C-alpha cells in the first residue's frame, strides 16, 4: 500500500491505507475525528464538509488518494481558532443550531464562504450554504447566524 501524506488540522500526517477509502471514513475511523458527520454518503447533505486547501468539500465523495499533499481542516481543527469562536457565538445568538448533526458542516461551509467573501449578502449566504442540508431550522436562523458572524468577526476574515 502506498503512503499518503497530507496536513491534517495543522499537522503533517502519513497513512498507509487503501487509497480508495473515503476521506470521511479515514477521518472518523482512523483519526477518530467524529465531528465530521455522515448524513447521506453521496454528496447531497454536506454534513461531512471539510476544508481542503481552504475550500469546502464533501469528504464522503473524496477518495483518500486525492488527499495527498493537501491541507485538510476538519471542525476539530477549526474549533481551535478565533474565527470558530465567533461562528459558534453567532450561531448561539441567532439560534442557528438545533439537532446539531448538520452544524459542524454548516460552520465549515460558513468558514469557507467568509474566507472568500467577508461581507456576504443574504443571497450570497444562501448560495454559500446551499450544499448543506438542515431539516430542523428552515435555514433563516442559520443565514442570520452567518451574517452575525461576519459582523462580530469584522477583520478576522
Amino acid at each position: 500500500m502506498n503512503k499518503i501524506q497530507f496536513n491534517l488540522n495543522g499537522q503533517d500526517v502519513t497513512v498507509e491505507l487503501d487509497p480508495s477509502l473515503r476521506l470521511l471514513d479515514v477521518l472518523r475511523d482512523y483519526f477518530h475525528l467524529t465531528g465530521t458527520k455522515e448524513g447521506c454518503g453521496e454528496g447531497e447533505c454536506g454534513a461531512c464538509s471539510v476544508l481542503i486547501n481552504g475550500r469546502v468539500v464533501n469528504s464522503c465523495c473524496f477518495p483518500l488518494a486525492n488527499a495527498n499533499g493537501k491541507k485538510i481542516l476538519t471542525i476539530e481543527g477549526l474549533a481551535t481558532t478565533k474565527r470558530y469562536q465567533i461562528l459558534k457565538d453567532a450561531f448561539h445568538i441567532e439560534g442557528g443550531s438545533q439537532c446539531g448533526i448538520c452544524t459542524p458542516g454548516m460552520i465549515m461551509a460558513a468558514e469557507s464562504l467568509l474566507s472568500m467573501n467577508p461581507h456576504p449578502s443574504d443571497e450570497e449566504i444562501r448560495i454559500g450554504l446551499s450544499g448543506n442540508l438542515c431539516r430542523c431550522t428552515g435555514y433563516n436562523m442559520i443565514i442570520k447566524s452567518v451574517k452575525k458572524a461576519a459582523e462580530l468577526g469584522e477583520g478576522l476574515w
Partner: protein
Amino acid sequence: MFDPKKSTPKIDHEEKCSGQAKYVSDIYFDNMLFAKTVRSSIVKGKILDIFVPELPEDYYIVDHRDVVKENYVKMVFKDWPVFTVDTVNYIGEPIMLVVGPDKQVIDEIISQIKITYQDEEPIFDLVKSVAHKSFTKGNFKEASEKAVRSIKETFQTGYQEQAYIEPQGMLAYLEEEGKITLIGSMQCPYYIKNAVINTLGYPEDKVRVIQPAVGGAFGGKEEFPSTIACQLATAVVKIKRPIKMIFEREEDMLVTTKRHPSTITLEAKIDENNKVIGLKANVGLDAGAYIGLSAVVLSRAMLAVTDAYTIANLDVSGDVFITNTVPTGAFRGFGSPQMIFAIEMFMNHLAKDLGVDPYTFRLSHLVKQGDLTSTSGIFRDPILMKDMITKAAEISDYHHKTQEYAKPNVYKGIGMSWFLHGCGFTGDGESTHIKSRVRLVKDEKDVVYLYIVAVDMGQGARTALKRVVAMALDIPNEQVVFDYPDTDEAPDSGPTVASRTMMIVGHLLTKAAQKLKANWKKGQHQEVIEQYQQPDYINWDESKLQGDAYPAYSWGVNVVEVEISPVTYEVQLVGIWSVYDVGKTIDERMVIGQADGGITQGIAYGYLENMRHEKGKLRQKNLTDYIIPTSMDMPPMETILMDNPFLYGPYGAKGVGELTFVGGAPAVALAIENAIKRKVNRIPATPEYIMELINNE
C-alpha cells in the same frame, strides 16, 4: 424574577458546534462488531430457501431462530415481526442480520446470500381494512334532509419522508451477563426498553436504554427504532459482544416508516344561508405491510376533521389499510396534516362553488370558545383565532394580494391556512397508557438533577425543561443538571411525541419543583417524584371517540406567497407569515426555531417532497431524488407569538412542535390555487400536477 420568554444558551450548543457531541455513530467500543440487515427483495411471497455461504471466523448470522422469546416488536398490535420467519410482505422486510468486525466483509457475505422465494399476489390498493373507526356529532341525517346543497370532493396526499440528517442507528452491549444496554438514535427510550423486554423476556431491571445526541427525528424515531433495538438485542444476546448497526441513507429511506399516504372524501351539506350544517368524512390511510401505530394516527386524522371550524352535524369514518409496501408511521402532526390539508382546501372550494368570498365564508364557520369539538367535547379556553387571522392578513397584505393575484395571467398567489393542534396524547391516553412520572433529585450541594426521558432531538428539550425547573425553584440555571436520559436513572416520563413534552412533562416538573421548594432543606439529599394526574374536566370515551379528545389546543395561521413559472410551473416561495397561539412562549428563540423548521417541512410536504412507489418499490431512495428544501428555497419568514396562558401548562405553555407543521401544506396549496386559478386536490402540488391542472381544462 425569571422571564419565561427570554432565551438562554442551549446547554448542548458548544458540543454540537465543535462536533464533540456524541451521536450513536460516534460511539466506539473495544471488540465491537457491526451489523447489517439482509432484506426481502420481493414484494410478497414465501421464503423457500436461504443459502448462506460458509462464514469466516468471527462472522455471524442472526435471524428469527435466535429470538429469545417473542418474535414481534411491541407497539400497539402484535403484527410486526422482529425477523420474518418464512413470509415477506414488503420490499426491504428484515430477514436476518450479518454481524462481524469488518463492514466490507459483511457486504461480501450479503452479496453471496441467495434467497429463493415463491411470489404471491401483492395488494397495493386501499382494499384490505385492518382497523375501522367512526364517530358522529349531532344528527347528520337530519342535516342532510334540511340542506339545499350537497358538495363532495376527494383529496389525496402522498408519502413524506422525515429525512432527519442523522440516519437511524443503534448500539447494544452486555453490561454483565444477563443485562443488556442499548444506545441509539431515538425519541422514546421506554418504548425501546419495553420492546426489548418483550422480545428477550428479560426482567425490567435487565434492560437499560441510554439516549445520546439525536440528529433530528420528527416522528421517524418514535416507533421504528424499537425494531432495530429488538434485532440488535437478539444479536448481542447470541454473540455476547458490543454490536453497532447504523443505517446508510438509502437503507434508511427505503425501509423506515414515513407519513401515511391518504385518500380523504368530504361531503358538505349546506343550508340556504350558505352555512355548512353537516359534514360527512371518510379517511383511508395506507399503513403499508404492518399496522404499527397506524390506528392511532387514524384517530388523530379523524378528530381533526373540522379543523378550526364549528360544524354541528358530523358523520366521520376511517380505515387503516394494509398494503404490500413499506410500513408508514409517526411523523410530526400524526395524521392531522392530511386532514387539515383536505378540510382547508374544501372550505375554500365550497365558497368558490357557492360564489361567495372564501375568507368571509370561512370566518362565518370559525370556532369560538364554548363551541363543541368534533367529538362533542368543549373548547373551554379562550380562542384568539379571529385576532390572529386579522394580524396574519395585515402583516402579509393578504387581502390586497389575493385580489391582485386573482387577475388572469398573473402567476403569483397567496394562501392562508387556519388550524389547531390537540396537545398531548389523544383522549385519556396520558392517564391510561402513559402515566408519566418525573423525578427530581437534590444532592448535598443543593444541585438539582432532572431524571426524565424527554429526548432532545434538536427542539431544545434539555435546555427548556432545565430552565422550567430552575424558574420554579427560583435558583440559577447552573444549579440544575439535565443529562442525557438513561432508563436506569429516569422513570418513564413518556415518549417525546405528540407536542406533549413541554405541556405535560414540563408541567409535572414544575409541580415537582414546587414541592421540592416548599420542603427545601439546605445541604440535604432530597428526592421528589411526581406522577401525571388527568385534569378533572377531561371526559373521554375511547370506544365511541366521544368527549374531550385533548386537554388543550394550540392554534395557528399561516400565510404563504408563491410565484409560479408559466414555462416550467416550478413554484418559488416568496414570503411566509405565521401567527401562533402556543399558550405562553418559553424561550422565544427556541419557539421561533420550531416555527421556522415546522413550516418549512409543512410547506415542502405541500409542493416539493415527492415520494411514490411503483408496485411496492419506492422510486425515491436518497436525498438526490427525494428533494427537501435547501437554503435557496426558503424565503424570509415573519412569526408572531400570542399570549394565551393555559392553566395546566408550565407558565401557561401548550404544545409547539407539530402545530407549526400542519398549516404549511394547505397554505402553499391555496397560494398555488390563487396563482393558477384551478382547484388543487392533491399534494405534493408538483410542477407535473400543476401542468396537468392547467392543461386538462
